[in-house]
């Protein structure tokens, strides 16, 4: 049985990769250890957050699935940083985990050209340097033109609780053992990371009266651009805090915590450390927040965000019972740490295809990232590019200046990853332009070009963009004359009156003035503009100065990005480069001159020399 694309693993990365390649018309096979465990959320029951929600909306803008499944199975949604600027606002949704799994499996099963199959892959079939298929443990072989590996934390996974540990990819599920050996034999360098998850307690044993309640937003929202926004009736989350008693117990038993007892010596993510590490590193902090979040509507299991720990269970129980509201909470699932293999991402290039074996792609936690959204973004890019390469179409290369996905991949490929990588808005230097509200305007063209976004959808985006520009030019054209009536309105708005005619465009630049307040001056009614158009116009006007500065910076970067560096370049033969630069460039093998300039230790002079040396050979843009 031969397929075009074989996806190994059906987590968030695997699902996006398979759906993308199948929807592009490629015969796609998904192999997973257990077909009942698709798109699982082993850690927090939420999708989105700062940086992460931008990733999800960008995947959606180009034609991915995560946002749509989220809209279908979310039980609470809200906007974070509502009082801050649009560039740092983000959506965050609480998810019904099991409904999410069922829905994603339904989507996979009903996608044309996609076959879902249970099987533990233990070797990648390679013929003269290119992947040609995958073999599963029972001996069956599947031929394929491209293989995408999205095995999450299953490569030689090891679960650790207190002093006990046993081989498992997730609690109770045996890991993939011999795929790592196979990858090493193919020449990949592998390293190990660890991540941990907090205990779950029984809802009936929690005393909610002592906790602060957190509701979702009441305004119409949606993750996907293509779903229309609606108001979700949302369940409650609860906030409580650890206290001195909690910290004392942790301190007393710190020797038993795996990070101290040596059971775990690999790096964990700094952004979600265990409560043990928080107490060690910040002894002076009197309290740490604990969010009590439901795992789904069908279950009583409550997720304790902030109490991640892999202490022995007996101590986990004691720790939990010191927390306000959890005095007699009972553990259903103990917290645990999982240590797993990942491949060093600098062995990949921009399409996430490996530089060592052709047609072999890697995406998700296997690349050393943490988080469902980061995994889904990589899966989508790998799936799309595997398909495009087979159809020998130009690849979809996203870069730092047009998307968070570009930032994610560029960071993975150039930075030394010291801990499971998580996305933040502060990682994106052009975040004022890469906002989550304009992801469709920025990226749906890519989706339309490769065929995942229909022409009708794309036309809608272009139409909206035109309307925005038309509204802005209208605001520039119409001006406000300084008569008494207008000035009264201005004062009511809390801004100073005017004495000379002022364009509404300039008026809107004042921080305290909002577009809905001034739209009437143009003679149009507010409601014959769709809410999104008003919002986009307001952002473009209010923050025009900053946005233009970033756009000009992006233009400068573009000149370097169009110089592609071929893979077989021997940097040691290039005269004039420092030895350190030659070593680093050979190790990382950057794809473009721009990317080379972002590698730590490469100076502007090295870049000029690279440009000079290769002028003859440089292919300016494929």
């Amino acid at each position: 049985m031969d397929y075009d694309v074989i996806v190994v693993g059906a987590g968030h990365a695997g699902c996006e990769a398979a759906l993308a390649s199948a929807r592009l018309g490629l015969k796609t096979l998904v192999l997973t250890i257990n077909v009942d465990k698709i798109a699982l959320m082993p850690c927090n029951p939420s999708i989105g957050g700062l940086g992460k929600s931008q990733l999800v909306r960008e995947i959606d803008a180009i034609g991915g699935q995560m946002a749509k499944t989220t809209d279908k199975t979310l039980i609470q949604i809200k906007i974070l940083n509502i009082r801050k600027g649009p560039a740092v606002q983000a959506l965050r949704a609480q998810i019904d985990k099991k409904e999410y799994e069922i829905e994603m499996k339904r989507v996979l099963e009903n996608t044309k050209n996609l076959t879902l199959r249970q099987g533990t892959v233990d070797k990648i079939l390679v013929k003269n340097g290119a992947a040609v298929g995958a073999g599963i443990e029972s001996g069956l072989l599947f031929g394929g033109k491209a293989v995408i590996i999205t095995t999450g934390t299953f490569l030689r996974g090891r679960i650790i609780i207190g002093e006990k540990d046993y081989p498992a990819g997730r609690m109770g599920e045996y890991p993939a053992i011999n795929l790592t050996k196979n990858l090493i034999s193919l020449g990949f360098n592998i390293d190990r990371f660890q991540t941990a998850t907090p205990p779950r307690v029984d809802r009936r044993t929690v005393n909610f009266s002592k906790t602060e309640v957190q509701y979702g937003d009441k305004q119409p929202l949606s993750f996907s651009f293509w779903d229309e926004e609606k108001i979700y009736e949302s369940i409650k989350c609860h906030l409580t805090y650890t206290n001195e008693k909690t910290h004392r117990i942790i301190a007393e038993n710190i020797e038993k915590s795996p990070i101290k007892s040596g059971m775990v010596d690999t790096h964990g993510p700094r952004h979600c450390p265990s409560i043990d590490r928080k107490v060690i590193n910040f002894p002076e902090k009197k309290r740490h927040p604990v969010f009590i979040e439901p795992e789904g509507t069908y279950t009583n299991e409550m997720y304790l965000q902030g109490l991640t720990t892999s202490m022995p269970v007996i101590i986990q129980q004691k720790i939990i019972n010191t927390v306000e509201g959890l005095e007699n909470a009972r553990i259903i699932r103990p917290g645990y740490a999982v240590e797993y293999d990942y491949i060093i991402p600098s062995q990949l290039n921009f399409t996430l295809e490996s530089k060592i074996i052709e047609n072999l792609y890697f995406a998700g936690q296997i690349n050393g990232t943490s988080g469902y959204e980061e995994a889904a973004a990589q899966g989508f890019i790998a799936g799309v590019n595997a398909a495009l390469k087979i159809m020998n179409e130009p690849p979809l290369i996203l870069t730092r200046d047009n998307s968070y996905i570009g930032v994610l991949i560029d960071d993975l490929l150039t930075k030394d990853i010291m801990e499971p990588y998580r996305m933040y808005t502060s990682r994106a230097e052009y975040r004022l332009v890469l906002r989550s509200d304009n992801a469709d305007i920025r990226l749906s063209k890519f989706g339309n070009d490769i065929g995942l976004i229909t022409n009708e959808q794309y036309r809608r985006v272009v139409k909206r963009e035109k309307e925005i520009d038309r509204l802005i030019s209208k605001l520039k054209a119409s001006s406000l004359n300084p008569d008494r009536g207008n000035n009264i309105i201005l004062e009511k708005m809390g801004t100073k009156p005017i004495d000379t005619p002022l364009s509404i465009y300039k008026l809107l630049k004042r921080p305290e003035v909002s577009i809905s307040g001034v739209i009437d001056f143009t003679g149009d009614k507010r409601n014959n503009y769709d809410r999104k158009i008003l919002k986009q116009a307001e952002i473009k006007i209010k923050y025009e100065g900053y946005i233009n500065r970033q756009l000009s910076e992006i233009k400068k970067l573009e000149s370097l990005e169009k110089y592609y560096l071929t893979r077989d370049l021997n940097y040691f033969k290039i005269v004039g480069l420092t030895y350190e630069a030659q070593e680093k460039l050979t190790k990382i093998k950057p794809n473009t001159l721009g990317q080379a300039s972002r590698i730590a230790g490469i100076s502007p002079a090295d870049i000029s020399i690279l440009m000079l040396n290769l002028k003859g050979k440089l292919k300016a843009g494929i």
Partner: protein
Amino acid sequence: MGIESTGTIVAIGTRPGEAAIGIVKLSGDKSIFIADKIFRSKSKKKLSGIDTYNMLYGHIIDNDGHTIDEVVVTLMKKPKSYTREDVVEINCHGGIIATTKVMELCIESGARIADPGEFTKRAFLNGRIDLSQAEAVIDLVRSKTEQSLKIAAKNLQGNVKKEIKRLKEMILNVLVQLEASVDFIEEDLEITPYQKLTKKVREIKAEMEELISDEKKGEIIKNGVKAAIIGKTNVGKSSLLNLLSKKEKAIVTSIPGTTRDAVEEILYVEGIPLILVDTAGIRKTKSAIEKIGVDRSLKHINEAELVLLVLDGNRKFEKMDLEIIKKIERKKTICCINKVDLKQNLEMESIRKYFNEKFIIKISALKGIGIRKLENKIKVLIMDNGDLNLEEKIIINSRHKNILKEVSSLLDSAEKAMKEKMSEEFPSYDLKTAYGLLGEILGETTRDDILDKIFSQFCIGK
């Protein structure tokens, strides 16, 4: 040293041999426009009006009308020019100081200081030089870069570098607060309130202004080689100073902002200003005032690039002389044995122990004996020694000055945004760019400082 290869660039190039004539070269699509802005030709013609390979004689005028220099301007229109772009060469006569002023005027009208070897790089990229010449170009780029790096580092005297590092750290602390309040909104972090941060940015701005103005006082822009004349009291230091300065017909040009040190004279050696500083005599002293004088001499010594040690040939070698020699061990020194016209009691062997024969000169400040030999020796030291290469030094100084100005305008924009209660990511954008520019001056390539600092400073833990 940005890496973009766009925009119009300007640089000083000295024509080999005649150090006195400085050339300011402009290349790029806006070079004619910029030149026309600052150049008034005698014949009232505009550069844009004349054909390629023609010259115009006239003057360079700054924005408030002062004549800076009398120049001859040559125009080479693209593609027939060195870089295959529009090239304008302004031949100045007023020595290095005037040339620098002309270059700064070009920058103010929109040019960008060229990277080391950028002219040659553009020539190559635009295909005027073929591949075979690539190696030569590369060595040029590499050596120029290394040289300018070395000079940049050395040029930034200790305190200026420390100052920039401190300001950079202060900006980082504000950035950490802004970014933490944006990316970690769900954590229970104690973020410093917005007004306090605004005040902090205002403080940084004030200190930045001060740093720039220092610079105007000559701290950085002192375009010249500093030489200190030292020795015990009344060994003839002042008379040597007057002798050296009186001989040369100095062209006095007003250099805005250079305050003169009371005992300082400018001497032009091959067009390069040599700032001679006469220091108070060094001797053991109890009196506080004189102590200050001695300390200031020591300060001059360590700032000077060249030291003229004056010894009185007529008096014995004393312990005090040894002490002074110890202080100037690492410095480039010429040992002048003065009053050679009197009876020589100074034991030469002890002198030869510390100085190479080539650098011991017998002079008589009173009678003017040996002065020619001394001047040649000074010229040798200034001209040939690499790290005294003045042209690079000047370019580095103006590049730093421009960066510091840009940083201060960014601080302005950040402060304004914060006063208007704009959301954190806007001032943070200004401060991040400023932070990067300061890193550039210090020669660092930026890393993930902000995130690293946040994790060490705040307890993050979702």
